[in-house]
């Protein structure tokens, strides 16, 4: 309702039409004169000109008639019995308040002193007796036009005030919703710091952070075109897509594609969202970055103090349809105490009072000079704040820092698992075989997670089980089907090579399968879940593993220790191409 009202603005348009239009509305005029002849003569002239005329015989009566009839214009004789013209003028001014009521004195006095006194008493003009009807008409018409203009301005001013108040109220409500949606998730985790400073009530910047069921931290910093409500409107579908897909266990690529499609569908052509998205796997020390249209982020490496730029390689979200969307990511090796910095263009474009921009160079200098990485976040913010002059914040200044920590030190709320049936399915198994065309571009894990979620127990422990499932599936795919050797990842160059190979081999995959079997049996007070994953690869010599000789080449990257800490048992079978993990709880 209110939106229709605000957008149509019907009143303002009508007002303008009245002011500019040809038809002169009827004007109500009060004449106060104790001289009967003069009064009647004036009344006759004015009636003839089409005005509505009221008359009074003295100042006292003039005030009474004014109060009752609210005329638009007042003609006062200066010399009248009881209350004279000057006094009546003063009183009428009071009654009129802020309304514009021209008061014109009727006088046969000629002296300058007398005329000055008329004006001092609040008169707008004077009309000499005897009346000249041409002069009279010209003066009245001029005042009537002024009165109309004045009223139009006042009504518009009042309307603007009402609209403005309404807009602020609406924005306040929208802002409360926006804040819940746009700056939510686990942004308050111990290892994340962020700052979003708005230049209006709304800014176009959005920061989101959440944990996937497998325990990865996903962070998104987005900057919508423009400022204010138009910029904030896309934040809703963005945040919703991000969180709901993250919670369901979808991969970074799936989430990127879906966000792009959503924004492409809902946003107008000229509104889009520059964004940088990071997917951090603390357990394996792998970070994936997708940057579409934001300035270089920085990965600050703790071991050598180097800053690795995270450069934009894509068109922002919401510009191209799915067929043209590029979801390829850059992969980086990360270690505890490394730091990830994401910012919108507000920092580089922050402008001082000499119209200079802060720029990338100044930003990188801060990193070069820094001696204590813990201070980097504050140093950047202080430098920008010092640089800009107060009145010239030219964009939204937003910055997010994520410190890489060991998995055990990462504390953030994981999404709750919500199942609909309290008892859940009791006794079932599922077998799922993925063939090459599926393996190359489909992630089966969200679907499996969905099945697992139906079991009530997994509402609490689903995250851990999902971590194991992800780990086992990744091993089957990368080491089994794609024949990638995890020892490659021991050097930084090899690390990049590993992920390039992975992409290439997936793209050209002709042979290979992965079979996944989930077997669940629940009792009233416990349950058992068996996950068996079999790949078509050559397997590996797992006998050494059983003898405790782990740490050597083939299974170094398999995250086995992590999984052992979670599962009841983990067992390799066949040539090492089959792995079986069991989870047991309660009295089973």
């Amino acid at each position: 309702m209110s939106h229709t009202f605000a957008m149509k603005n019907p009143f303002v348009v009508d007002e303008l039409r009245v002011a500019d239009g040809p038809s002169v509305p009827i004007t109500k005029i009060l004449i106060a004169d104790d001289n009967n002849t003069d009064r009647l003569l004036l009344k006759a002239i004015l009636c003839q000109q089409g005005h509505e005329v009221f008359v009074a015989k003295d100042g006292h009566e003039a005030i009474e008639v004014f109060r009752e009839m609210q005329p638009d214009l007042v003609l006062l004789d200066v010399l009248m019995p009881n209350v004279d013209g000057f006094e009546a003028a003063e009183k009428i001014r009071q009654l009129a308040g802020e309304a514009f009521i021209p008061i014109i004195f009727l006088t046969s006095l000629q002296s300058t002193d007398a005329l000055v006194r008329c004006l001092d008493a609040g008169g707008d003009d004077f009309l000499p007796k005897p009346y000249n009807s041409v002069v009279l008409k010209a003066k009245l018409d001029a005042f009537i036009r002024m009165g109309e203009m004045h009223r139009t301005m006042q009504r518009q001013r009042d309307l603007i005030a009402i609209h403005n108040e309404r807009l602020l109220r609406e924005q306040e409500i929208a802002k409360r919703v926006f804040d819940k949606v746009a700056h939510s998730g686990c942004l308050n985790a111990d290892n994340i710091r962020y700052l979003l400073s708005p230049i209006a009530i709304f800014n176009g910047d959005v920061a989101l952070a959440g944990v996937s069921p497998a325990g990865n931290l996903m962070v998104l910093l987005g900057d919508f075109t423009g400022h204010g409500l138009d910029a904030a409107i896309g934040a809703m579908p963005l945040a919703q897509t991000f969180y709901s897909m993250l919670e369901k266990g979808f991969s970074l690529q799936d989430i990127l594609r879906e966000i792009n499609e959503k924004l492409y569908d809902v946003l107008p052509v000229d509104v889009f969202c520059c964004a940088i998205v990071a997917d951090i796997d603390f357990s394996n020390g792998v970070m994936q970055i997708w940057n579409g249209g934001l300035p270089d982020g920085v990965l600050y490496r703790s071991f050598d103090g180097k800053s690795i730029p995270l450069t934009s390689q894509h068109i922002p979200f919401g510009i191209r349809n799915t067929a043209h969307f590029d979801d390829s990511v850059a992969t980086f090796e990360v270690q505890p105490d490394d730091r990830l910095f994401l910012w919108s263009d507000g920092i580089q474009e922050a402008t001082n009072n000499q119209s200079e921009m802060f720029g990338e160079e100044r930003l990188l200098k801060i990193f070069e000079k820094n001696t204590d990485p813990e201070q980097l976040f504050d140093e950047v913010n202080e430098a920008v704040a010092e640089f800009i002059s107060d009145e010239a914040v030219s964009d939204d200044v937003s910055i997010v820092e994520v410190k890489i920590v060991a998995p055990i030190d990462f504390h953030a709320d994981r999404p709750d698992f919500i199942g609909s049936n309290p008892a859940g399915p009791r006794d079932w198994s599922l077998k799922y075989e993925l063939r090459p065309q599926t393996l190359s571009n489909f992630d089966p894990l969200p679907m499996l997670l969905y099945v697992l979620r139906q079991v009530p127990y997994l509402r609490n422990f689903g995250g851990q089980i999902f971590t194991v499932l992800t780990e086992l599936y990744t091993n089957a795919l990368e080491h089994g089907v794609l024949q990638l050797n995890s020892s490659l990842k021991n050097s930084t160059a090899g690390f990049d090579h590993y992920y390039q190979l992975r992409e290439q081999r997936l793209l050209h995959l002709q042979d290979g399968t992965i079979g996944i079997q989930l077997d669940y049996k629940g009792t009233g007070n416990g349950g058992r879940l068996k996950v068996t994953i079999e790949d078509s690869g050559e397997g590996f010599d797992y006998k050494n593993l059983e003898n405790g000789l782990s740490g050597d080449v083939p299974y170094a990257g398999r995250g086995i220790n992590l999984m052992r800490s979670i599962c009841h048992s983990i067992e390799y079978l066949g040539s090492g191409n089959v792995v079986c993990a069991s989870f047991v709880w309660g009295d089973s």
Partner: protein
Amino acid sequence: MSISSSLSTDGQELQINIEGRFDFNVHSSFRRAYEEPGNEVGSYIVDMTAASYLDSSALGMLLLLRDYAGGDSASITIVHCNDDIKKIFAISNFEQLFDIK
């Protein structure tokens, strides 16, 4: 800041010149510049010689032009960009959408 435009004699090519800051304040004049000659125009040249700066709403305006000129089949060349403007196009990877020279 102002926008001017000129149509080639055969009416096939429209050149739009940007002067000063290319931002939201020129939104309607930029739009007028490409809408007035109508749909007969085959290709567009946006000349940035005199442009000092562009912001994200200018990128949005260019997307509107691209949409008007036929989306993926649009022929739009952006010429004479200064280094700052080139950088903005590079970050947003707009060279995938426009011919930037």
